[in-house]
């Protein structure tokens, strides 16, 4: 669980997660925005289906993989939230056409 410091300043950025409306702070990465919105699991692994969430936040662990605007297996911690971005949590292996 993560909460925003009350004096964290910035614009709000609307986006969706699995179709649901959510809000980020300008400058948030997708991974940070998911955590800020109380989403604890961002994917299930392709090997065993185990739940995972961001681990390193610096692009080396590859656990924060999510689908962004129909492109799968993107590292959430390496992408900044843009207005209207569509994030989807992932289940297992990447699909060939997404």
């Amino acid at each position, binding site marked *: 669980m993560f909460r925003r410091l009350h004096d964290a300043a910035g614009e709000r950025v609307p986006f969706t997660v699995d179709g649901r409306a959510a809000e980020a702070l300008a400058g948030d990465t997708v991974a940070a925005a998911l955590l800020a919105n109380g989403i604890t699991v961002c994917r299930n692994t392709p*090997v065993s289906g185990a739940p995972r969430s961001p681990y390193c936040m610096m692009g080396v662990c590859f656990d924060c993989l999510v689908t962004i605007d129909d492109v799968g*297996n993107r590292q959430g911690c390496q992408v900044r939230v843009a207005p209207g971005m569509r994030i989807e949590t992932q289940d297992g*292996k*990447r699909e*060939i*056409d*997404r």
Partner: protein
Amino acid sequence: MSAEQRSDYDVAVVGGGLVGSATAWGLARLGQKVAILDEGDVAVRPSRGNFALVWVQGKGLGMPEYGAWTRRSSDSWGELASLLRDQTGIDVCFERPGGFMPALSEAELEDRANQLKRLHNQQAMLRYDYEIMDRAAVAKEMPFIGPDVAGASYCPLDGHCNSLKLFHAFHTGLNRFGAAYLPNRRVESIEHRDGGFRLTTAGGGEVRAGRIVLAAGHDSARLAPMVGLSAPVRPERGHVIVTEKTAPFLKFPVGYIRQTDEGGVMIGDSFEDAGFDTTVRSGVTSTIAERAISVFPLLGKLNVVRTWAALRVLSPDGFPIYEQSGTMPGAFVATCHSGVTLAANHALALAPHIAAGKLPEEFDVFSARRFDVPKAA
């Protein structure tokens, strides 16, 4: 008594790659006391660079016996997989759905058709079913085929496996049979004495065995003359690309593109004379990538997680060398560049002969003496 002090190995197999492991496993299964001498973690290790195909089509042009040998291995591969699963619990994921070799132009398709015709017209060639399919026929099996694909040659005997699991299964099986796997023991010299062999290894170790099998990849070239044999093999570099794990979409091996049971897509292939240099060249992998996208445009979006370059073990004509020494009976050499396809033969067909101490006449065609004979004009 440490493993190396035992002097009663029936067979010492030099090389723990695919050829060595398969042969050693086959020998151990027959009750032979086997030692495998292997190098260490960082060595040439050509077996690591395989494509995991169990492939029949197209093989044997210039040596129909190789075509038959390959066919035989493919036909007994299922048996090998069952035996390994029963013994070790490891499923090596052998599938034989048939394989496609794509052609990216009408000319390429025609070349391919002619090549296969010549192959099958060879005298003594053991023929098998194959089909030259046009684009429409290929698209029926794989609707996502790219617009540049003109057709493909298809053979129902082609298949693939998980070669890492195969490797793991052989080693687990060897362990269960009580074979001695001795790593970090590069063989420095081999002596023939007292009706057997004495191998000295790096670091001053020694292993004695009644018979030896040289299955040391490129290093067989150095070792073979020590026992009156010849294995003039050279390295040939091939690059491979591996993608992230993807939901299953491709069940057929397609020549140089296949999807593994784990989900990753393996993409090859290339051929360069580069000595022992395994540096990855981005221009080569780029060409491989471009061709793969022509075959399956969908692949373009996938992330590449690994690329590597590995060294095939090639004899002058590309065909295997299986031979026993005339001057030092009990010494054998076994080398090939299709270690996965031929694993079943090595384990189930070759090993019994080595156990018996003699290769029958049908192996004469694979002797290195063939390189001494000037080619017919």
